[in-house]
């Protein structure tokens, strides 16, 4: 374990005295970098945000903001991290820090280092440029309001959606973000982007009690998994970290798989698009580049960028949350899950993958290698998320529509639902109620009343069962209203 080390703020730091379950946050604080704060320990508040050097598909490096509370320290073996202290000092603050300070962007200051890191991640985003504001946001507002999410410098405010501030009300933080210039020439973090990110380092830590292993290859991972089927698979660790921090989970063996190349494939074929299970949601979004509009609608609503930068698409399916967010969308897309074990591969329809509350068809010796989305896509796709807060929240109800219309008639309808049963489900009865009927107000009204009865919603702290059912009912009405089709009587 003495060979485990991380480059923090440009300096090699050996990692000593950590266990498999020590978070990067605790380790950083332990070595004196107390600018990294714990606000919630579950990836909601962003007070622990740091920058991680991650590989870009063109061979360069991105500075990616992540929640240090959800990253196992040992998973950083061989990696490069920058904290608020590494961005700048009181004597020589980084531009994001200077702008934050002078704009009144800090009051109590506790969330501020995390904001500085998230902001720096966007500051260094390649492709950020003035006038970048896209039309998607503008369409979302009424009266042709201009895009409220992009600054004149191209800064995308969504980058800060995973950081909570209880003091300022956010306006001065926005102003600070929108006042940022471009990185100056010679800026070491900007220059670092041109060189490759550190590669994955095979890592072993711990003894019989709590072990962490990053296997060197897929074969090694599958062998380990075959020999120790109780092992916990860890990819983006955004769920793993919550379990460890809040529920005290201490698995005897954690196997890190998110850097295995076989799990990081991305292929666009004629019959399907294959998404490697270990691609983060941000990577999936970036690489798809709008190819699957339904997922494009979903991404900004999925947790926060700090989470999406780590959470993997395979992990999101593997945890089998009844809500899931990607699950309803992938159900509507009729996606298939590719499972791999030492014995070979098999493919399972996602609708058959979820077998019960947080259980799946994955055998203990298998891992999810990829997700396949069949082509062509349905013509009409929409994702509806009902949550208390618009961003950075878990759905009460999620509804994904993929509907094919042929001359104003519903040729096929596939609807995925989250939050209304023990697993994400297909709304089969509603799909049947739509199929073959004219896409008009009457059909939609009939089908909406069927949709309102799908699933078995429960009441909890997020929403009542009644509201959940009501929201199922209105989702289709809202979809129909927002997609008036020419020549179809509305």
């Amino acid at each position, binding site marked *: 374990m003495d060979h485990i080390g991380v480059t923090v703020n440009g300096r090699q730091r050996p990692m000593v005295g950590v266990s498999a*379950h020590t978070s990067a946050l605790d380790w950083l*604080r*332990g070595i*004196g970098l*107390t*600018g990294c*704060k*714990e*606000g*919630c320990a*579950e990836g*909601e*508040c962003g*007070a622990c945000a740091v920058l991680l050097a991650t590989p870009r598909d063109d061979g360069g490096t991105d500075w990616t903001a992540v929640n240090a509370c959800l990253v196992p320290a040992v998973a950083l073996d061989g990696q490069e991290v920058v904290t*608020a202290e590494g961005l700048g*000092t*009181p004597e020589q*603050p980084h531009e*994001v*820090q*200077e702008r*934050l*300070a*002078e704009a*009144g*962007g*800090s*009051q*109590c*200051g*506790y969330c501020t280092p995390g904001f*500085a890191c998230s902001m720096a991640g966007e500051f260094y985003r390649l492709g950020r440029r003035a006038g970048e504001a896209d039309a998607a946001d503008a369409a979302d507002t*009424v009266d042709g309001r201009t895009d409220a999410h992009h600054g004149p410098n191209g800064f995308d405010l969504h980058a800060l*959606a995973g*950081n909570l*501030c*209880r*003091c*300022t*009300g*956010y*306006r001065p933080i*926005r102003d600070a973000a929108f006042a940022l210039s471009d990185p100056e020439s010679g800026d070491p973090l900007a220059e670092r982007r041109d060189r490759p990110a550190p590669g994955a380092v095979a890592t072993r830590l711990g003894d019989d009690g709590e072990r962490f292993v990053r296997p060197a290859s897929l074969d090694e991972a599958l062998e380990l998994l075959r020999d120790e089927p109780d092992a916990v698979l860890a990819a983006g660790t955004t769920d793993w970290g*919550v379990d460890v*921090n809040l529920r005290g989970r201490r698995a005897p063996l954690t196997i890190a798989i998110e850097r295995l190349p076989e799990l990081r494939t991305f292929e666009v074929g004629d019959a399907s698009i294959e998404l490697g299970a270990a691609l983060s949601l941000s990577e999936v979004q970036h690489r798809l580049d709008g190819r699957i509009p339904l997922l494009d609608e979903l991404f900004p609503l999925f947790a926060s960028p700090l989470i999406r930068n780590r959470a993997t698409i395979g992990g999101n399916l593997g945890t089998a949350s009844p809500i899931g967010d990607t699950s309803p969308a992938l159900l509507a897309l009729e996606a298939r899950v590719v499972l791999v074990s030492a014995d070979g591969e098999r493919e399972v329809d996602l609708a058959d993958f979820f077998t019960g509350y947080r259980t799946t068809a994955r055998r203990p010796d298998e891992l999810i290698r990829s997700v396949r989305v069949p082509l062509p896509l349905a013509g009409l796709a929409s994702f509806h998320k*009902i949550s*208390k*807060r*618009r*961003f950075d*929240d878990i759905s009460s109800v999620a509804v994904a529509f993929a509907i094919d219309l042929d001359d104003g008639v519903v040729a096929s309808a596939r609807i995925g639902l989250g939050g209304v049963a023990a697993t994400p489900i297909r709304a089969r009865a509603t799909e049947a109620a739509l199929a073959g009927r004219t896409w008009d107000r009457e059909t939609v009204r009939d089908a909406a009343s069927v949709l309102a009865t799908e699933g078995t919603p429960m009441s909890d*702290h997020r*929403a009542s069962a009644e*509201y959940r059912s*009501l929201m199922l009912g*209105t*989702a289709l*009405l*809202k979809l129909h*209203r927002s997609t008036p089709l020419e020549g179809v009587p509305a």
Partner: protein
Amino acid sequence: MTDLASRPRDPVVGTATPHESAVQHATGAAVYTDDLAPSTAHVLTAWPVQSAHTHAVVTLDVAPALEVPGVVRVLTADDVPGVNDAGVKHDEPLFPSEAMYHGHALAWVLAETADAARAGAEAVQVAYEPLPSLVTIQDAIDADSFQGIPRTIRRGDPEDALATAPHVFQGVSVVGGQEHFYLETHAALARIDSEGQVFIESSTQHPSETQEIVAHVLGLPSNRVTVECLRMGGGFGGKEMQPHGLAAVAALGATLTGRPVRLRLNRTQDLTMTGKRHPFHATWTAGFDDDGRIIALATTLTADGGWSLDLSEPVMGRALCHVDNAYWIPHFVAQGRIAKTNKTSQTAFRGFGGPQGMFVIEDILGRVAPLLGLDAATLRERNLYVPDQTTPYGQPVRHAERLRAIWDDLRTSSDFDARRARIAAFNAEHEDVKRGLAITPVKFGISFTLTAYNQAGALVHVYKDGSVLVNHGGTEMGQGLHTKMLQVAATALGVRLESVRLAPTRTDKVPNTSATAASSGADLNGGAVKHACEQIRERLAAVAGRMLEVDARDVRFGDGRVSGLGASGPSFTFAEVVQAAYHQRVQLWASGFYRTAGLHWDTERMQGEPFKYFAYGAAATEVEVDGFTGASRMLRVDILHDVGDSLSPLIDLGQVEGAFVQGAGWLTLEELRWDETDGPGRGRLLTQSASTYKLPSFSEMPEEFNVRLLEDAAEDGVVYGSKAVGEPPLMLAFSVREAIREAVAAFGPVGCSIDLGAPSTAEATYRAILAAQAAAEADGAAESGAEPAVGSSAASTDAATRTDAAASVGAAVRSRFLSSES
């Protein structure tokens, strides 16, 4: 203008200055209490054993915990050398024998690491003998479970006035609590220093009280205990009373082990163990004349105080004093009582009962305006205080004309009337999405209602090199108090801001301080700092007068230079004068003291002048509501707020904006949910994490946010003419909820009263929309000229189902003589 309020030429106060620690914040260099722990040698971590029952007699077996590797000691009631109590009312045993709420800390484990401490806490065996529990306000009302002394404010003859008023309405208004969710959870670090002194770093708004509680738990005199507060990562009232017991646990642990002890609650512990804003329940009867003027109001407020009294009595006192908000109510009776329930002990939270009191009148006006045939803005405007009127508790409403001036200015500057017309047109065109625009006023009384708290001390040192060190009794929680105090000191001494430093708050520097609370931090400590600085300046003026060969009265201090009257004469630097003064054996430091003059308050009769002055403001908010989901968002917010002559405009602007968004969170988003079932989890807080308790994020920021501070607003009798700012703007957020109500009303028929749950979450709003739509359908089905009350009662009944059983009692709005209106 008094000396206290008048400003010299070119003062440092009034300049827009960033927070004194802003760059330290942004670079991670600012140190908070628990940041000290990693570099503290041999430090132990404390972890609570929390009750798994809501109400039960408990018996502990701590022996298994001591078997856990790394566990050093388990603290229980037997270890307390002094008084086993963490409060000031002697109703908060620090180590209880009876668990009073789910999550109640029963014992504390000290261990070498947090992991070991957690494992040790899990190993402690707790035997429970369950007792019946009360979880909701209604449970407590039904069981007649109250605590503290009920209070009543009365004026005129409300019973008679209500019997004869042309229009009388009755209702129930219920508003939920709020979690402070300071980003920094509670933290303390205690050690015993070389001299045997107990030294505690604490994230506390009230260091002197933390010191007192620690002393009485340890059985020590106060002079053996020192508390320091470096800074807090947010307080909002949540660290006024709640830190004391936690600091005492750490101090007890340090005393017994001889090692430093750190205690930092994680978020779940903080949410499940510490108090929150009080949920309130109000029944009311309100009478109006034909012009919509309020004739009388009778209301009974019930606060959910939780398991112990804490600050519930003064919170209720302030609530009762703010039921009137900005409105003249000639006949008035408001009774307040505090329910005792098996929940966290609810405590101070920005506004301190004021928001809950004002909620009642704003909810009433919003609900009855359509029934009176008036738009809500007109109804509110018509009832604003005018000069020479007094509050129901007998305090003249000084500067009532300011209230009206703010109102008129905001209506104009926000283009209120034209936008309302545009919104009406928009709503007519859109079936599924509606907009609403509402304007609401704020009048908030400034001073502690406990008169003794309105005092403060300061200690100012001038060193031989001319640098200045300021200590005062206030604490910094992000509100910018230290920044303002630096500006006050620089102004009073005539030096540059950079030559003044502020030291962290310590009880061994300034004793017997009041909580930094009630928005009074700058008023009180500013008065004390100024007093100290002026003593020093006076002494320096004598020295400088001799150096300049002018009368001491003609010496001027400014910008770090000391000169005589007129620009042409010689001048010296401040440091040169200080040097000379030192050699002449002139005292270069001073203590300052301030007490707020003119306050008196009869707690028994609830009459007097408890407030030095009122802070005023108004907000106009436009929202858009999605008819499919009930989700709403703020399109535009305009605020005009009175901070007197601002001590620090950038700081004050931040306070106004931040308070507004926090208030909007309370009223529209943040929802505390407890398990109210009879199942095994009864009484457990269900929203006990950041993932389930949602506070405003970037997505809740208003799309357009125009905030102005009232100009030329000097307040006489307050430091440099300023006014308090911390709490009052929170209540500007009523405009958000009222705008949602307006938007929902657009889904219903004309004259439809909208009963809207609070918080007005998407779900609550959607229910109100359904009720409005149902009323519209009923209205369409019926003959024209249907009673408006039909719609309103439908809305009320529906909304009642989402709150609690209590809301259904008398929730239907009753209106007499309505036919004469329509």
